[in-house]
């Protein structure tokens, strides 16, 4: 308290020196505990609790033993912390006859995630670049269809894609799913990259053309090094989107290659056996961990990503 007071003092005196005799400036100071502030922060606090509650419940439940869960309520902190449910969810939990835990789904998801992210961003960035800087007749038609495609319910395109993948011999494989993610990631990413490349100064592009650079030369030597932030945003969108996908995973893969979300759902919602809520919650938390880590690390870029994707979409 004393600190802030002295700081205010110095600030005020500095101000006074600078603006001699011009009277008080800046907004009228507000009392810290006005009724308005109490309402405001109270409301925000209550909402924050509502938002945090499920996460808290997840963590707390996953650290309890089953007897404790049966006795107590879900909001009470664990008396005896145990990591057994986590181990079980990772390595032993059963889906049907298979008892390998979530680990297999995790590695499947990783195997799907990495090529999907790389492929979809590579294709979409080149597309966006072609649309922004090398406009050709008819490009806008394709782009409009692509944007419309982002809003069309996926259900309409599910079965034709099954047929196409079957024809290519990729149905039920991880690569088939990678292709599907590339296709459905294309509208939003193309839009993102097109808007970004359009916002870059055109003089750079023109100068490079005068110097004799071609399509790929400009892309790799000028556009790519300049657009690191937008690539990070695209990676964030794709990593969370693909990791969280359920529909495509369940349609285009087989039980051996199920991604983590599908396997999680099968573990938790399987009807056989006693429900082990702590293991379920540990499994749920494990699945949510990757996007959560991405979210907390990326911070403002995540917001920028969804805003870029949403506002202009």
């Amino acid at each position, binding site marked *: 308290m004393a600190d802030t007071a002295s700081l205010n003092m110095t600030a005020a005196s500095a101000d006074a020196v600078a603006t001699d005799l011009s009277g008080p400036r800046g907004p009228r100071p507000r009392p810290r505990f006005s009724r308005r502030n109490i309402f405001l922060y109270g409301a925000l606090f209550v*909402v*924050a609790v509502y*938002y945090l509650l499920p996460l808290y419940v997840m963590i707390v439940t996953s650290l309890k033993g089953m007897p404790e869960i049966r006795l107590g309520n*879900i909001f009470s902190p664990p008396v005896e912390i145990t990591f057994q449910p986590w181990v079980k969810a990772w390595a032993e939990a059963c889906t049907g006859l298979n008892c390998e835990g979530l680990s297999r789904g995790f590695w499947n998801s990783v195997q799907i995630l990495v090529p999907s992210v790389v492929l979809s961003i590579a294709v979409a960035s080149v597309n966006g670049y072609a649309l922004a800087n090398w406009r050709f007749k008819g490009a806008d038609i394709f782009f409009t269809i692509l944007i419309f495609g982002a809003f*069309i319910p996926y*259900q309409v395109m599910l079965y034709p894609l099954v047929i196409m993948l079957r024809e290519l011999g990729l149905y039920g494989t991880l690569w088939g799913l990678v292709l599907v993610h590339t296709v459905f990631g294309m509208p939003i990413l193309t839009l993102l990259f097109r808007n970004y490349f359009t916002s870059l100064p055109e003089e750079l592009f023109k100068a490079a053309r005068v110097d004799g650079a071609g399509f790929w030369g400009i892309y790799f030597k000028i556009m790519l090094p300049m657009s690191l932030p937008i690539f990070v945003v695209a990676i964030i969108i794709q990593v969370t989107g693909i990791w969280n996908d*359920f529909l495509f995973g*369940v349609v285009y893969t087989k039980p051996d290659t199920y991604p983590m979300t599908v396997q999680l759902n099968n573990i938790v919602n399987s009807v056989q056996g006693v429900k082990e809520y702590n293991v379920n919650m540990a499994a749920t938390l494990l699945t949510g961990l990757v996007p959560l880590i991405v*979210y*907390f690390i990326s911070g403002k870029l995540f917001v920028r990503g969804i805003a870029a994707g949403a506002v202009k979409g």
Partner: protein
Amino acid sequence: MADTVETAVAAAGARPAERSRWERWLIWGIAGGILLRLAMVLGLSVWFEPLGDAGDWFIEGLPWLVLALAACALFAVASSSTNSISLSDNRLRGHVIGWTIAALLLVVLDLLGPQIKSSVAFLGKPARIFIEFCGVHGTFLAAVCLLVAGALATSGSEKHLVSRPGMFERVWASNLTAKIAAVPMMLVALGVFTGGTIWTVVYSFTDSRLLPREKWVGLAQYDRLWGEDRWLISIENLLIYGVCSLVFSIVIGFLLAAMLDQKVRFENTFRTIFLYPFALSFIVTGLVWQWVLNPDFGIQGMVRSLGWESFTFDPLYNQDIVIYGILIAGLWQGTGLIMCLMLAGLRGIDEEIWKAARIDGIPMWKTYLFIVIPMMRPVFITTLVLIASGIVRVYDLVVAQTSGGPGIASEVPAKYVYDKMFLGQNLGQGFAASTVMLLSVLIVLIPWAYLEFGGKKRG
């Protein structure tokens, strides 16, 4: 005298009208040949089947006939050209050579298909399919490539710089790298988005069960669809969920954004907390809320253990209110995003507006209601479209939280489609249901697209 003027004009770049007409014919001929061949492969050939052998001849020959007509047009273009055609001083020499090489390669693939196929077995199925494709369509495509090469050779025959590039040149030669780079986008836009959608709509009029088949039954699938309880409940659920989630997420999202916009401390912390559910998948969301709403251990259990024995709050086990249980989870996951969009909208409003409103003595809530919100109309519309297109897709959340139960009380259309297509072996129903979903999205989407993009073009 008049003659020399005309040649001068022609030399200065104005193409003879006759020639550009022939060029147009050439383009249409090639495009028509390709499209006709494609249509034959995809099923137009059914029309010619009653003709017997003559029909077979038609199926094979018609695309070739169109290509031959295009070749005639090419000949006409070449003969109406004012300059001599020689490859050495052709502006488009590289392109001409490239297309010729492509034609040769296709012929080679066609002739040596079987040998190549056995020697590239290690490349896997996609490569084999490609070669097989070349074996069937190689000759035709080679002819197309040769025509294109010929067309480029004639249209590039004029040496003067001022000449406006011909239509053919603009389509096939200028900016070719960009066009090739955009091929994946074109394939996706046409093949998957347009083609897939049309395919599903068309096959929704068939009697497909385990596999799609072309037995047309008119609107029978739709009749059955609207007669099924499960579908009607799905639609009702979607309407309730949709309206509530639209209203609540916009209201809550805006209120949260307005609160965060009051220069609060820890704004970043609050925003992080409100937004983190959005990073989680619907599956995780559904499973967490399934647990929180569990009647024995969750909220109801806790309140009862506090002494209020008759307290009931079991949305997931009560048929009448189960959709609201899903709504709670959906709102928890989605409002953070809406808040962020609204916050961005609020920040985009000029500070001067606020100052002016304060000087005029307008109370804050009135400023929001009558000044700020109308100014944020675009943000609201985008949010609306975003939520609306998301609502129709709701699938994972329901699967994780209730699997459609209790009974069929929380079914949604997306789940209906999936179940019919991949579990119920009733493709026709799935196609019909997804077509209805598509229609409902288009009803929202087309007016929005018209407002958003149609206006700009006019203005």
